[in-house]
């Protein structure tokens, strides 16, 4: 089948590509860029995407798909549907499933579940068995089965000696260790520690709980010359630590979640559990530091930390409710509304952080917009004004604090694996 994306703005910073043109895709492969003839238009399905951006498909390197174990909250399929609806053609899923992704069987199970989908799924495997922070997982086997990184996400690798071994051992195959940076002995709380937690009577999690582990991990990454990726960075001092480490040439990368650069702990005043996450929403000063870090490249990419939870679990007394929110279907809207339209990032830099850098961190090839290449594309309209409605989410779970929020900018279509998602539907191309 042939399709034409008419008069799209083709943008790929890696190729220094930024031009408005027609794009012809046949059987999932980019056939022609520009110079289309009348017969091409006649024999193709034409999409009038005038002035919409067409970039390498977006990639979210931090999602929880809940399968196996909590299929009532999300499955690989519904998570992939949410990803496609949100503008992503690839995701990396975290290992805190049940059982954990700590055996090659579970990696293969997830890959199998994702096989025929538009969205590519790359499992992140547990760094230690059952994410207990004690014995290393069978990393080589996991890598061979398709794991692209290792993490005990949900917690940091507790023991510095174990982290050292994980870093050293995984150097063999070049995968990063993704760290959820939190010193548990300092993090016995339900929200950010500060004036707001004091007035709300909730136990706080101080910034320093994150900073200490970021610092430890930087030192170990330097010592081992290993790769550490900081998941969902949220604290001001952590941003500065990463900035300085990068200057020293240490192999450290970082991601930020949209809720952390959009919201502050002020939102908690309603005791709405959809604002409860870990790391917690921080203060305005932290948000400013995150924006600065995004701007100067300290923070490499944006990832949702998509964390589906059942309604009855989230609709709970505050201290008992689980952490996390679904993020795949609001991520691009928040990046465009909060970062691009507010002039913190150019569209080109936003695309680097949504499409290019996550793949580079995970050693995955970045899709090229070239004749002969497989079409792996996101088409978005940075100016489309829309209102979030959780009842339209493709995700099985609806735990989002952004319901009814007005956003400017939205993904309108994705293409990958000979499939297209457009106007709420998947179809073969």
């Amino acid at each position, binding site marked *: 089948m042939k399709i034409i994306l008419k008069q799209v703005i083709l943008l790929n910073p890696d190729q220094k590509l930024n031009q408005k043109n027609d794009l012809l895709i046949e059987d999932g492969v980019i056939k022609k860029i520009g110079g289309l003839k009348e017969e091409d238009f006649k024999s193709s399905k034409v999409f009038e995407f005038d002035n919409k951006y067409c970039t390498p498909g977006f990639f979210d390197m931090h999602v929880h798909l809940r399968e196996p174990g909590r299929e009532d909250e999300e499955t690989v399929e519904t998570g992939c549907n949410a990803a496609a609806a949100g503008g992503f053609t690839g995701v990396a899923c975290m290992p805190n499933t049940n059982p954990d992704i700590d055996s090659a069987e579970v990696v293969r199970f997830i890959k199998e579940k994702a096989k025929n989908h538009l969205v590519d799924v790359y499992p992140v495997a547990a760094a230690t068995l059952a994410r207990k922070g004690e014995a290393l997982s069978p990393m080589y086997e996991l890598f061979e089965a398709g794991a692209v990184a290792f993490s005990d996400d949900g917690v940091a690798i507790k023991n510095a000696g174990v982290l050292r071994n994980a870093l050293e051992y995984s150097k063999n195959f070049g995968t990063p260790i993704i760290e959820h940076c939190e010193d548990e002995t300092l993090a016995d709380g339900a929200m950010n520690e500060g004036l707001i*937690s*004091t007035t*709300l009577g*909730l136990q706080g999690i101080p910034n320093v709980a994150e900073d200490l582990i970021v610092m430890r991990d930087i030192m170990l990454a330097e010592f081992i010359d290993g790769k550490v990726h900081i998941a969902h960075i949220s604290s001001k001092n952590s941003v500065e630590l990463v900035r300085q480490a990068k200057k020293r040439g240490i192999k450290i990368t970082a991601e930020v979640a949209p809720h952390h650069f959009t919201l502050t702990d002020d939102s908690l005043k309603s005791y709405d559990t959809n604002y409860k996450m870990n790391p917690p929403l921080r203060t305005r000063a932290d948000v400013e530091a995150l924006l600065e870090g995004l701007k100067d490249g300290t923070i490499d990419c944006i990832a949702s930390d998509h964390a589906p939870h059942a309604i009855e679990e989230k609709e*709970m*007394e*505050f*201290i*008992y409710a689980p952490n996390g929110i679904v993020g795949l279907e609001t991520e691009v809207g928040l990046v465009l509304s909060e970062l691009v339209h507010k002039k913190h990032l150019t569209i080109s830099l936003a695309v680097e952080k949504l499409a290019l850098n996550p793949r580079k961190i995970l050693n995955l090839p970045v899709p090229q917009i070239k004749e002969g290449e497989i079409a792996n594309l996101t088409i978005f309209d940075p100016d489309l004004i829309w209102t979030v409605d959780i009842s339209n989410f493709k995700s099985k779970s609806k735990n989002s604090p952004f319901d009814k929020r007005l956003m400017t900018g939205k993904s309108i279509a994705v293409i990958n694996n000979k499939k297209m998602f457009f106007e709420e539907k998947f179809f073969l191309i």
Partner: protein
Amino acid sequence: MSLSSRHLLGLNGVPKEDIQLILDTATTFREVLERPIKKVPTLQGKTIVNLFYEDSTRTRISFELAQKRLSADTINFSTSTSSVKKGETFKDTVRNIEAMKVDMIVVRHKSAGVPQYLTRISKANIINAGDGLHEHPTQGLLDMYSIRERLGKLEGLKVCIVGDVAHSRVALSNIFGLKTMGAIVSVCGPLTMIPLGIESLGVKIYTNIDEAMQNNDVLNVLRIQLERNAGTRIPSLREYHKYFGITSERIEKQNKEIVILHPGPINRGVEISSEVADGPYQVILDQVTNGVAVRMAVLYLLGTMH
């Protein structure tokens, strides 16, 4: 005159006029409590549920007495197990109770924010009887009532809250209420027990108890709550008593009038010595009596709102 809100969730943001109205109304009920027949028909036909998700003796009894003396129908629901363990969610429990047609819910819960959450899932008037480490507004009100009863005013008085402020819902309600009423509020305790950012609320921090006593008219002495893990923030109860305990030697050294409050239950020999707990400066049992009057006032004002 009526209150500006149909719930009492905390004292944060409650206007001065409302606090004034509650305290003045409590004075009337305080008089009722001295009568041979201590009952008025004010809330006849109203149904009140005391929803206690955390152990409580005095607050629950105080509320129940207040309700009975106002002739309301009272139902007690007490459980110390969380809904997580019990299998039924908190929301379902509340909906079931609501379906039985209740007018008011008095709630105590381990989690801060539960009273606010209740206002979203129930139509009843909600009264917070203590939520987590957040607020305990009727305690704050009865403390203010007791101070006013003893010293005749609140405005301009210097009140210091002593002890584990970080893990006390009494502290926050006192701070918000007293500041609204024009008192000057400070806290005193080891810094492990003083929460971050408290100075931004306009509260001075003392780390020396003698200095705090020197500079204040009233001490509100909090219970050291071993059940809330206070032991990890102080080396020992002995050391706490040595440096922060209120003793008669310390009071006498000051050579001035000082009023001692304690929300109870007291740990004799820890935050307060027996001599002080039974001595002339304390108003601890007055607080208990006043608690019933203040709760009657709150129930009456909320229960008769339209």
